[in-house]
């Protein structure tokens, strides 16, 4: 099978990292990892929260990063340097609509061993660190990548990161009637452990909360 060569991928990663580092409040480097038969080159970027929107626009417009894979929020209540961290994973796929010749679609078969320039597939990992605050917030990129829309909804729902400018924010995995401010992946929420007998003695769960005292796992 024709795959992207390590040399091409590392050169493309170095190039984008160098260009991103020139922007304000952006630190970019290339992280080399090994997976199976080939080395992976991940462009690792640290962005200041106020520069995020400009960086995102530059990623989309100047570097053709076209695919938002995942957004992760992490709550670090005990860490000294950060309380919240938002991690974006992007891919550059280089996918374009196939050409149409004489009314017939010609499938766009990319030979990955020969890709060049901005078509080289890349992995990017972007991290934004926030200090101690009760309302962590970051600019939304919903309008740049449609794929970020539901990722942002999920990150707000589960972790409680507010995405400024996001249209149509709502609960997606938790019930709609969850109390405001309840975001289960924040670290103050612990998994609760119920004893087998108690659970079945009290099927309705009315007395569940008092019996939980001291049984937090």
């Amino acid at each position: 099978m024709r795959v992207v060569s390590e040399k091409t991928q590392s050169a493309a990663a170095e190039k984008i990292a160098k260009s991103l580092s020139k922007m304000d409040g952006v630190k970019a480097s290339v992280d080399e990892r090994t997976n199976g038969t080939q080395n992976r080159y991940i462009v690792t970027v640290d962005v200041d929260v106020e520069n995020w929107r400009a960086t995102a626009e530059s990623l989309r417009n100047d570097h053709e990063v076209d695919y938002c894979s995942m957004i992760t929020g992490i709550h670090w209540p005990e860490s000294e340097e950060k309380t919240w961290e938002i991690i974006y994973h992007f891919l550059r796929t280089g996918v374009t609509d196939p050409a149409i010749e004489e009314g017939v679609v010609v499938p766009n078969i990319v030979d990955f061993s020969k890709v060049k320039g901005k078509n080289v597939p890349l992995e990017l990992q972007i991290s934004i660190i926030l200090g101690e605050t009760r309302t962590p917030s970051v600019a939304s990129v919903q309008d740049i990548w449609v794929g970020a829309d539901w990722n942002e909804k999920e990150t707000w729902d589960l972790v409680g990161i507010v995405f400024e400018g996001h249209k149509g924010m709502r609960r997606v995995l938790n019930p709609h009637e969850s109390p405001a401010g309840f975001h289960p992946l924040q670290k103050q929420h612990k998994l609760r452990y119920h004893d087998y007998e108690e659970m079945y003695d009290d099927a309705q769960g009315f007395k569940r909360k008092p019996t939980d005292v001291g049984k937090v796992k």
Partner: protein
Amino acid sequence: MGPQHPMTHGLWTLKIKVDGETVVDTEPELGYIHRGVEKICESRDFTQITTYCDRLCYASANTWSHAYIYAAEDLLGVEVPERAEYIRLIAVELQRLASHLMWLGAYGPDIGNLSAMVWCLREREMMMDLLQELGGSRMHYNFPRIGGVKRDLPTGFALRARHKVKLFLNRMQEYEALFDESTIFLIRSQGVGYTKAAEMVNAGVSGPNIRAAGVNYDIRSAHPYSVYSEFDWEPAVERSSIKGADCYDRYRIRMEEMRNSANLVLQALDKIPGGAETYHEPGDPKILAKSPSRAPEGTSGSHHFEDSRGESMFYIAGGGDGRGKKPYRVSIRSPMFITIPYAAKTMIGYKVADIPAIMGSFDPCIGETDR
């Protein structure tokens, strides 16, 4: 529509705004079977998490546990023996076959081709038997381990696998006749639910759904992992119509992918280092490398993986409870969680009766969507 949905095996609701019979707007409601897997993972050690990942999607358990294992290996810095990578490839490709067959078997009845279901489930059962030989159970195999696999290929597995996969390849022609010559199937799947490649990439859709629109983007070739680069194969690509890929294209691409997976299994059985008939005891360094059990704080691991439904991904931050014995945070990217909102928008402008045909063609699985 929902939560007891006409076409999926999970619970979800699709809110539809209609003008007569025409769909004007849609909005999906998910989360009915949210189990909090990401939270549970924070209190389990790295080995225990594999079982939870199996249960993300019952139709495609093996691909999900492998997606996790690759991310965990990235985090812990483990190098996997080559023989184990081949065995994993066989397990994952057999699972992809079983998953696509489950989809095909479910999609037929959705749009009126009732007889196809039992045929597809018969073939799926062959794949399940093979996977059962590897993992020990019928659906949730818990097969991969950090650093390798649970067991080597059992004695006689190669013989049975070759026979069953070849039999399957022959029978594929029967299915194609069953679907491609079924008027009801063609009428209902052709010309509805058009999607364009560039638009799908921007919306985060990947996998077979995007390859149906005439591009060959595949994580296995664009970000090669495992030993896929050593085989003679090309990702399946479908020639869509000028309006984009319709439901029929998405059916065709999965048929081609099944051929691809079957050929990959056959090639892997021939090429596996040490031979497919050799058996190593569980825990042998040829199939299982030693791995550390703790990941210190500040480390992280991630891996993009070509799942049966698109790009799945795990991000794991190390340094949790027990001095790093447990992960601090596990984040799961489910391809269907991103695809369902997009698929819901593609049905705007079609009739209410087209909804099962369009939605089903994206292969939704609610287990992984809700996590």
